[in-house]
């Protein structure tokens, strides 16, 4: 398995969607290839970091203005 093939499989690997034989082959590659281990770790960390960056941008003020609009539109 080449490093390029490893990258192609990362999404399925992390979701547990790889067939057992392919998963084993991938993990054997990880045991021998430090750059790919680093890639796996940083790929996996990317989702977590980005989620936290997006999550902190919450606009708590928007609810009041929206509720006023919705009361006019929906509440009879």
């Amino acid at each position, binding site marked *: 398995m080449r*490093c*390029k093939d490893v*990258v*192609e499989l*990362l*999404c*399925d690997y992390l*979701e547990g969607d790889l067939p057992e034989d392919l998963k084993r082959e991938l993990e054997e590659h990880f045991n021998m290839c*430090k*750059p*790919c281990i*680093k*890639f796996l*770790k*940083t*790929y*996996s*960390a*990317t*989702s*977590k*970091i*980005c*989620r*936290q*960056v*997006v*999550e*902190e*941008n*919450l*606009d*708590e003020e*928007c*609810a009041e*203005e*929206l*509720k006023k*609009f*919705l009361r006019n*539109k*929906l*509440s009879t």
Partner: protein
Amino acid sequence: MATKVIEYKSLNDSELVDLIRKKDYSAFEEIVDRYSPKAMRLALKITKNREDAKDVLQDTFVSVYKNIDTFKGESAFSSWLYRICTNFALMKLRNRKYDNQSDSMDENPNMDIDALASHSHTENDWSDRAENILMRKELREKIDQAIDKLPDEYRVVFLLKDVEGLSNEEIGETLNLSIPAVKSRLHRARLFLRKEISKYLNE
């Protein structure tokens, strides 16, 4: 009055949905309180425009109220709401593209898998420094900008999956995509963002 507010706040989503079906407007307002900040965040991240995001938010909650009977409870209520919000946001994007053809056509990043997948022995492993990375305001801003740089079709999938936690099936249904297409877009989005973060940390 105060006890009423506390009572609604203590109800879970499906209890509130049952009350909304019976036209309990206070239950609906509790849903608005509970989900509008998150829906606004999603709408803003998809449209990248505050006025458009406000319109999307209004359309989303009007639709939730009017169409509550179509929610069958097969998925989480939050997923149903985010799907409605995403569809209105995508409609905004499409309309904007018709209105302004040059919009968002500039600076389209390279999403080629080979370019995104390259890695070397010299690259840093920054995965255990997540806390440290998030403490740096300028880095958080750069990551936020990197997400905005993603082409629309990749950004939406990334937001629904990695931020809002929808399943691949739910994303596929929302965007009319096959599961392999959802995974492919998600994968490329993550690869692009990984490369951007690596770039900032190696600067």
